[in-house]
């Protein structure tokens, strides 16, 4: 009874304990595997404890996967965010955006594998897309859009843009429309309203959107295999990790690559958030006056 009372004083009662099963589950199947992988990455099949990392950063076939992945992920994320903001600002003004958001949620729901299969048909040399280009005279010969860099890029736009857009939309609709009206009443034209009111209030949200979208794009996997050149320009880091794990059966090396992947993602996200706190100081989110 007294133990119970002292626990209760710290806020630990029967209800609080309900959090335990889920927390233990995540510790067992997320935290533990991660730590296990981290330790395993320092226990290579051959060589000293850093052999996996040494190998990764000395073999061009391995270390270039980082730059190749960044070369896809950063432009795609920049494009998706840059397109999402103006579109979300328009969509917020329409009364019933549900049909539009429903259509946009479809590619996310279908997932990358199906989008890849669709693109192989639609964007292939005989697909409707190229056929339309030829028909309208926009091109004299089919453009190669699959089995190269652009195939992966486009697939990341098709699945990534809706994700980025819906995230942006939730931030944009969180800004009190009265603020923009107040700006208009004070003589601000639409560009001024965007620059001085909406953008500063949206920066924190856009940044989070950017980070989440980037992390998704950086971990591109099936479409890099199906739509890219997995041995060339789209040999992304996840392919390297997959090859090590399931083709070379080197769990230690695969774990090392997974850790490098995580480290790059964390580094980029931390760099962005740090840059934000340097450049922009103000209330996070926004709305209430």
């Amino acid at each position, binding site marked *: 009874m007294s133990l119970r009372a002292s626990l209760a004083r710290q806020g630990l009662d029967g209800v609080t304990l309900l959090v335990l099963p889920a927390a233990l589950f995540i510790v067992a199947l997320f935290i533990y595997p991660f730590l296990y992988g981290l330790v395993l990455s320092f226990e290579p099949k051959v060589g000293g404890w850093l052999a996996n990392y040494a190998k990764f950063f000395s073999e061009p076939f391995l270390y270039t996967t980082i730059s190749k992945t960044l070369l896809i992920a950063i432009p795609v994320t920049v494009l998706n965010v840059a397109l999402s903001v103006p579109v979300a600002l328009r969509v917020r003004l329409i009364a019933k955006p549900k049909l539009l958001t429903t259509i946009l949620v479809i590619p996310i729901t279908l997932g990358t594998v199906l989008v890849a299969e669709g693109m192989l048909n639609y964007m292939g040399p005989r697909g409707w897309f190229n056929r339309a280009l030829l028909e309208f005279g926009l091109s004299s010969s089919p453009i190669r859009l699959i089995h190269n860099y652009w195939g992966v890029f486009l697939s990341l736009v098709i699945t990534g843009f809706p994700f980025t857009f819906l995230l942006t939309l939730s931030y944009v609709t969180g800004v*009190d429309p*009265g*603020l923009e*009206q*107040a*700006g*208009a*009443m*004070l*003589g*601000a*034209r639409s560009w*001024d309203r965007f620059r*001085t*009111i909406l953008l*500063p*209030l949206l920066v924190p949200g856009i940044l989070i959107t950017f980070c989440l979208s980037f992390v998704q794009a950086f971990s591109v996997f099936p479409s890099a295999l199906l739509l890219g050149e997995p041995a060339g320009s789209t040999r992304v880091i996840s392919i390297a990790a997959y090859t090590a794990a399931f083709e070379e059966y080197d769990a230690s090396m695969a774990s090392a690559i997974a850790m490098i992947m995580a480290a790059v993602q964390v580094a980029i996200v931390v760099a962005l958030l740090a840059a934000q706190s340097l450049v922009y100081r*103000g*209330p996070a989110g*926004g*709305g*209430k*006056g």
Partner: protein
Amino acid sequence: MALKDFRELRLDSMSREFGSLNALKGITLTVARGEFIALLGPSGCGKSTALNCLAGLMPLSSGSIWLDDKRVDTLGPEERGFGMVFQNYALFPHMNVAKNIGFGLRMQRRPKDEIDRRVAEAIRLVRLGAQSEKLPGQISGGQQQRVAIARAIVVEPPLVLMDEPLSNLDAKLRLEMRAEIRRIHSSLGCATIYVTHDQDEALSLADRIVVLRDGEMRQVGTPAELYSRPADPNVAEFMGFRNVLPTTASFEGGLSVTLGPAVLAATAVDVTVPGPAVLAIRPEDLTPRPGGSIRAVVQMAEYRGRDFYGLAVTDAGTELYFRAEARVTPGETLFLGADAPRVLVYKS
């Protein structure tokens, strides 16, 4: 801005429809320079729609708005140059008080020293000296209200629109800010259109009150006119005539009306023929008195400081709200009456 020196603002059958709903039906009104107009009405009467149309935040369905001979309803809100105080203030949360107030001047690309000078003046006018570096989230509701007003008037607009600006404040602050608004208006003299559902606010602030109901103008007049002679029973009810009852009018020996067996001398508003009519009496004018002709039994009574307000029921079951100077108790029988000028009769 050139618009500053206008003589009058004219609304010419301004209308607004939402689908099949007529939110605003043919509002026609002329506002003189420096005049303080209150748009008064219950929620859903179209007063906020009217304000948004004036501001340019909502397009008109038909009609027009004129500043002297310049048509403004075709302009966007940013081109009209009106000031507006929003219900929730709509202060920019990422700008400090001075930046918020200077926003309109910055949008006019004024020189920096002019902006600083005029912002400082506005801050002094609304008495916010010590707060100018704070963010809106760090100051109180009353102070936010002052910032909102300062931000609207610093550009010296020809017209200031206020959308229930006091409704988010507590009762004490509301009285205080009401006095502030009156003071600021009299020191600047810019025409103001003030939307409210609170008749006390309208009566105490406005030069003229426009009563709106179901999107229509029901009455336009000075506070005194509205208070003493509402144009129709609905307006009367809204202006505090809680006793609005069906009656029969008779013109024999001056106008009188019946209430059950009782007969009251009355004043005609728009009734011209004998027969069925509607009477309106304020509770404060219906009092127990010697020779009072309405016999009623007290249902309940509450003490309001100086006197008692209560509900009584006649033999016929009619409920009457009344005032009494001495204590009354439920079950007591009273003889109520009202002076003829305070009993208004409308055609039914």
